[in-house]
């Protein structure tokens, strides 16, 4: 019952939003006095139409993209599905590399107060840097646009992962570690059977934050270097001042971001435990 109620409210809000959108983008009265020769040279928005597309325009565009999401008309024009796929590969690549580096390093930092104190200044200085600020340096050093964007994803995913892993490892209850010590469990076995399961929910929360940031950053990175990906798609449509397609891309980015987030939230539920 609660679920149905919330669903009804959600639908009402959606209808209200669409109504406001449609009303706000209604076309003005077309100026019919314009000379037809001149009218042929001008675009719809110079003749009184609203420059922002309404919900019906965007709906039609979404349908057009869904009908053929994987077309390929040359290196600069591919379907929205293909572009999303390119972006996802980059995000998962950079994110995967970040997990490989950050989780073991976070383990070390979390289990050694000395390491924690000595690495703290580096993490504190590098963490707040916008990942895109790395882009020019990456392009210059790596000399490859695709690898540079993976590097940028890597560097933005690393910090939340590192900090959360270290925090999770450091806050494993000392009683559990003591019990393990009493049973003379070795370091390696203790790490995998006691510390890792205990810290897993915190680590996965770090992953969830990381992948969210990575998905935010990839769009900006691809707008910067171009080539392929959903960010390039947005840039290319902006180029043509096609707001309709930009809005379509916003929805697509939102949906994929939600799926990534929900996926990791599901994983977190799998490893969480009650004390």
């Amino acid at each position, binding site marked *: 019952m609660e679920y149905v109620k919330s669903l009804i409210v959600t639908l009402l809000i959606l209808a209200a939003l669409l109504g406001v959108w449609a009303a706000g983008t209604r076309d003005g009265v077309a100026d019919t006095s314009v000379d037809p020769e001149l009218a042929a040279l001008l675009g719809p928005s110079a003749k009184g139409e609203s420059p922002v597309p309404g919900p019906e325009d965007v709906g039609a565009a979404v349908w057009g993209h869904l009908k053929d999401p994987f077309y390929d008309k*040359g290196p600069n024009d591919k379907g929205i599905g293909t572009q999303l796929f390119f972006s996802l590969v980059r995000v998962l690549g950079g994110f995967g590399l970040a997990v490989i580096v950050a989780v073991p390093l976070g383990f070390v930092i979390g289990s050694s107060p000395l390491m924690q104190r000595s690495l703290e200044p580096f993490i504190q200085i590098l963490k707040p840097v916008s990942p895109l600020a790395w882009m020019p340096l990456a392009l210059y050093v790596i000399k*490859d646009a695709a690898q540079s964007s993976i590097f940028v994803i890597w560097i933005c995913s690393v910090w939340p992962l590192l900090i959360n892993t270290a925090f999770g490892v450091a806050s494993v209850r000392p009683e559990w570690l003591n019990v393990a010590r009493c049973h003379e469990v070795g370091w390696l076995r203790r790490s995998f059977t006691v510390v890792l399961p205990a810290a897993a929910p915190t680590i996965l929360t770090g992953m969830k934050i990381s992948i969210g940031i990575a998905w935010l950053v990839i769009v900006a990175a691809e707008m910067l270097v171009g080539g392929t990906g959903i960010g390039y798609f947005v840039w290319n449509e902006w180029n043509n001042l096609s707001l309709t397609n930009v809005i379509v891309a916003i929805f697509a980015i939102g949906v994929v971001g939600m799926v990534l987030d929900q996926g990791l939230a599901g994983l977190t539920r799998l490893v969480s435990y009650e004390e």
Partner: protein
Amino acid sequence: MPSPTPAFDSDANLAHLGCSCGKHAIPEAHNVSQEARLDDIIEKSVMKAVFPNDVQRRRFIKTVGASAALAALSSVLPMGVAKSLAQEAMGKPEKTDLKVGFIPITCATPIIMAEPMGFYKKHGLNVEVIKTAGWAVVRDKAINKEYDAAHMLTPMPLALSLGAGSDPIPFRMPAVENINGQAITLANKHKNKRDPKLWKGFKFAVPFDYSMHNFLLRYYVAEHGLDPDKDIQIRVVPPPEMVANLRAGNVDGYLAPDPFNQRAVYDGVGFLHLLTKEIWDGHPCCAFAASQEFIDTMPNTYMALFRSIIDATDFASDKSNRKEISKAVSPKNYLNQPVTVLEQVLTGTYATGLKEQPIAKDPERIDFDPFPYHSMAVWILTQMKRWGYVKGDLDYQKVAEDVYLATQAAEVMKSMGMKPPSTTYKKYMVMGKEFDPATPEAYLNSFAIKR
């Protein structure tokens, strides 16, 4: 049972079953031996030119060995290019799959249309033209060799070779793409401020620091008594973002490449204040550029690419082809613009956005001319120095002749039946003021506003 003679091929050319000289069974064999012979002739004639005295030459070759002598000479003379120039279409490209970067603006028309209209194919190349987000990215991808060659702004190869704004990397500019074709666009609210003297405090956008747009805008406002660094603000904004910035009021106007001037009129955001041809009629804008390394390591590929660009530029300069070209370059894969916007730019019949004269006709609004005059480079260098982009002494002629390959362009144009100009230097009139490429320093010192 296999037949003793090959089956008759109805498509075979009966007149030329063998090669043209008759000594080779198939034309390919003829070409190979012809190529080797040509190489030999060129090498011998270069040796002869360097050592006109027969006795001296033989003694020199005897002491150092023929191949060592040739290698020593090749290091001074671009033997590879000379050879492929002589071979014309004969030299097989070392590599046929190429990537050429471009910025989606009408200046790049020849580079772009050469793909859909088959000019690269015609010269034996399989070129992918790759759309790029901005000039800095084009520069970096060209340096990184992600692109074999690229669409650049005419000042960029000069800046790259001089190391202004990046490490010095020898880039060469074999051909100009377009002349004219830019404009100053102002926001609609400035319709009563057509006099540049009223522009104090305006914010302008240009596509790149090392661009004709920047130098022409600076020149234009300075001629009207405004200091471009103090009285107005000039920002670098990628062309596609200009219309959005103009609509939002972030900039008051821009000197930019088309289609973004025409697009501002098409979308009812701004009006065309002036075409850049009114500042300097025949000014260069965009160019086709490649690194010295690419030219040296793949001379045949480079020549084939060079010839396809010259071919396409020549086709684009014919005004009767412009409508067809507008359609070829408008799809998403290329410029991604409405055909009517491109047609207005390329045919020169366009809406101005002004009440007094809503439609203007100027067939010379944009033109395409590949010849890279050295004097163009000298003018650009004077402006780079004028505004402090390069400092210290500058050997104008040497830099111009190193970077702008005018002599080579003339050779290629001649070999393709075109008529290149007989001189690589000429005088220009820029806003009524004469520029003489022979006296760049005097020209530079004649300006009241400079750094």
